[in-house]
């Protein structure tokens, strides 16, 4: 509670905002628990890698379908994999939040983390674009029909942006100062 007051005070007066946020996150029970055990961080890292494989494996086929591969299979068939991709994403959102809360200082000043976040936002906007404007068009495509260019672009942007999320995630330790 004291840390929360400090954070609010810093946010209001605008000075030492980052330091206050870092101290606030590090004082949370999650951060306290992770730093107090030897295993929490490595286990979270392992789950983060399993989550990435699940996400890559289940979103990849849908992206390739949108690019025009396997065009005799309806897009709806590949959408059945999406809940598994969401599961992989949620595993990584939770474990990623654990990393961020436990060691905020090594991410907030890290260019690689901001680039990773940028590509996460691009990937998310790409999903929104598909769901809000292209979904019915994609689901109504006849088997064997040529895939419209906009769907190919969405598939391509998805593949590239998830690759970039992985790339800058792994480069956190080298482009910046993490770990």
């Amino acid at each position, binding site marked *: 509670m004291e840390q929360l007051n400090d954070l609010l005070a810093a946010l209001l007066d605008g000075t030492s905002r980052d330091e206050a946020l870092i101290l606030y996150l590090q004082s949370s029970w999650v951060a306290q628990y992770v730093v107090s055990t030897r295993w929490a*961080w*490595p286990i979270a*890292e*392992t789950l983060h*890698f*399993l989550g*990435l*494989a*699940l*996400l*890559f*494996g*289940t979103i*990849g*086929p849908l992206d390739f379908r949108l690019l025009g*591969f*396997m065009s*005799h*299979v*309806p897009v*709806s*068939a*590949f959408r*059945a*994999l999406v809940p*598994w991709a969401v599961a992989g994403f949620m595993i990584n959102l939770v474990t990623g939040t654990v990393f961020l809360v436990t060691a905020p200082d090594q991410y907030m000043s890290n260019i690689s983390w901001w680039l990773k976040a940028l590509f996460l936002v691009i990937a998310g906007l790409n999903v929104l674009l598909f769901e809000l404007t292209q979904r019915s068009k994609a689901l109504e495509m006849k088997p064997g029909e040529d895939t419209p260019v906009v769907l190919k672009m969405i598939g391509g942007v998805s593949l590239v942006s998830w*690759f970039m999320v*992985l*790339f800058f995630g*792994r*480069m956190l*330790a*080298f*482009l910046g100062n993490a770990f």
Partner: protein
Amino acid sequence: MTELLAAIQDSALSIWVRESSSLLAYPMIITMHTFGLGVLVGASTVIDLRVLGVARQIPLASLKGIFVVMWMGFWLNAVTGVMLFAADPRTTGLFFIKMGSIAFGIAVIMLLRRTLYGDGGDGGTLLPVAKTYALLSLVTWVVATTTGRLMAYL
């Protein structure tokens, strides 16, 4: 054995991967190793899930190409893995479990592929043994990924 490991450690490749300050050395190699993991384990996971009954609307015949993707992931990681091992040739227990589980996982994948598409089959009939292979494959990749990741901490 010790002499062999020492020779590896003194090789030009090992020294370059370990000591070069270039982002193209160790950082790029380990990043590509992580990408290869995503490709190999991800592609394997999707075929395993399909065999176990997820997304049945996808005809198994259309997923034959996924095995090619798996091999690309495998070879990317074989090459980058050799480079990472050369840089730091520590033969720990975790390392042997990881290598063993990868060898087992590849064997299971080859068996699964033969069960699904062998003898000119198109994946139309799903033998019960395919589900056993799919389950074994999932468990094996979890072990390989876990031991690989934990090597950084032990």
